[in-house]
């Protein structure tokens, strides 16, 4: 398939799912009426539902999908490993720890966006630690090891917070938040996450040529004029900003960054630079589809997006491992 055709198809898919997401919900209203209420400001409750609940939810799904898909493609390209995903460098678990601490200490209730702000701070500290641990000249292997160490540490600290939680309601809230969801988000979340994510997207979009050169390994890429330390800094900064912001507003949503680049790689001829845009759109489509699905499968039961994604993603992951086992 030609690259332009693929991008056009994925864009159309995202647009279609976006439109579907806008008309999916508990309110028993037809699509025509919903779109009319969205476009025409009559001050009625349906306009409010469309503009204040469904529209930001659909926009956030696109933003989070783009962030996760793009970061996954960049991470796999940088580490030259199809099993890499954004969570590998511990940014999402650091963000989760920040959010959990905010919930536990009551800081989350201090102001409207206290929880995502705390998560973003967690992500920032996480990426700083990774850069410190992996050092300026370290290769992919050191980065993975540092990421595993950080994920283990933040995971243990999150468990410790839960373990010592004196209040079962707070613990319950933490557990539900960690499952990842787009329910009850507003434009405040969009405006808070968008600038941070946009910085991350722009950074990751600049890594394309470097990732192409890395197809030949670190030594060859360095000899081709690419400063790998700088590339790594841009890439980690980009992943931290986009995935940190995604985790901050929606909780932990796994597998998108792993599965989407893997599925789309054959369609872009394996080229890491082309996979960036394709995965960004593919990630948006997958998160939109999953967010529509959680509302359709169990309406009114608040099935968590992260849970559904893991239920779909884990079998794909197992399939990946199975195929690699066959190859070796």
């Amino acid at each position, binding site marked *: 398939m030609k690259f332009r055709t693929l991008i056009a198809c994925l864009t159309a898919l995202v647009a279609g799912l976006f439109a579907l997401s806008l008309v999916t919900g508990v309110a028993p209203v037809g699509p025509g009426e919903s779109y009319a209420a969205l476009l025409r400001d009559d001050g009625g409750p349906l306009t409010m539902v469309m503009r204040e609940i469904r529209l930001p939810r659909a926009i956030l799904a696109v933003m989070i999908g783009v962030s996760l898909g793009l970061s996954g493609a960049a991470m796999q390209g940088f580490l030259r490993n199809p099993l890499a995903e954004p969570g590998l460098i511990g940014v999402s678990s650091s963000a989760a720890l920040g959010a959990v601490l905010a919930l536990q200490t009551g800081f989350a209730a201090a102001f409207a966006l206290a929880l995502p702000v705390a998560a973003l701070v967690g992500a920032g500290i996480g990426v700083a630690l990774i850069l410190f641990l992996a050092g300026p000249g370290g290769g992919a292997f050191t980065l993975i090891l540092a990421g595993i160490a950080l994920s283990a540490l933040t995971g243990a600290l999150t468990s410790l917070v839960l373990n010592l939680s004196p209040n079962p309601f707070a613990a319950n809230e933490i557990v539900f938040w960690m499952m990842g969801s787009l329910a009850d988000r507003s434009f405040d979340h969009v405006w808070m996450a968008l600038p941070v994510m946009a910085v991350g997207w722009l950074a990751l979009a600049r890594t394309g040529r470097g990732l*192409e050169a*890395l*197809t*030949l*390994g670190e030594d*060859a890429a360095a*000899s*081709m004029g690419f400063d790998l330390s700088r590339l790594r800094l841009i890439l980690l900064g980009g992943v931290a900003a986009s995935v940190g912001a995604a985790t901050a507003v929606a909780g932990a949503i796994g597998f998108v960054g792993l599965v989407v680049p893997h599925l789309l790689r054959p369609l872009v*001829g394996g080229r890491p630079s082309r996979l960036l845009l394709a995965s960004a759109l593919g990630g948006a489509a997958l998160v939109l589809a999953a967010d529509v699905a959680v509302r359709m499968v169990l309406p009114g039961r608040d099935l968590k997006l992260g849970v559904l994604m893991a239920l779909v993603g884990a079998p794909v992951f197992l399939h990946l491992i199975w195929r690699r086992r066959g190859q070796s």
Partner: protein
Amino acid sequence: MTLLRLDHLTVRRGPCAVLSGISLSIGAGECVGLIGPNGAGKTTLMRAALGLMPMEGASSLAALSATARAAQAAWLPQSPEIAWPVTVRHLVSLGAMARGRPADHPSVQRATDRMDLAAFCDRAANGLSGGEQARVLIARAMAQDTPLLLADEPIAGLDPAQQIRTMRAFRDLAAEGRSVLVSLHDLGLAARHCTRIIVLHAGGLAADGSPAEVLTDELIAGVFGVTSYRAETAMGAVFQPMDTVAP
């Protein structure tokens, strides 16, 4: 014109010097064979010369900015890797990309023709046989279209015909005024195709000169620890290692 100058190049790994005080220069139009036993420091010499590892002393290449270096020298590592199923055509074009040139630059087609890749241009590069992949990667380095090419054991794993074709391609590059520094273990191929031989032994420079000057029985016995059968043919010298000699 000097394309590479090394001045007292020393590389240490812990307390041990892997390379000590290597000084040499390579001018235009040379096909230089870098030979020496395993562990002599051939790969280290090339990587240090390119500025890819910490070293003492000076290298004219390492002193350049990354972009200027990519325009001056192409590097073909010993353990090459092709991470993704990109087409052979695209992979070779990465050489042009390193120079900021488009994928359809004439250097890409020239390199593809030189390494005889037309038959599998549209196939996934990482699905080819080891020997075919080696040829693709040599073409990628050639497509970078630099005055100097450094290749670390590029003909290991190639069949005899491809070994000869590759060495001939390097010799042709030298005839065009470029230079090649190629490490290899086949002394016969080195003698027939290289214009100059540099011998490394235990991290030091054991000999540097024309194949006839350098490849003596004494040197081969002293450096490689083997006796060899030697014959002069119309095509050049033939070396066949025969037996090990006592150290």
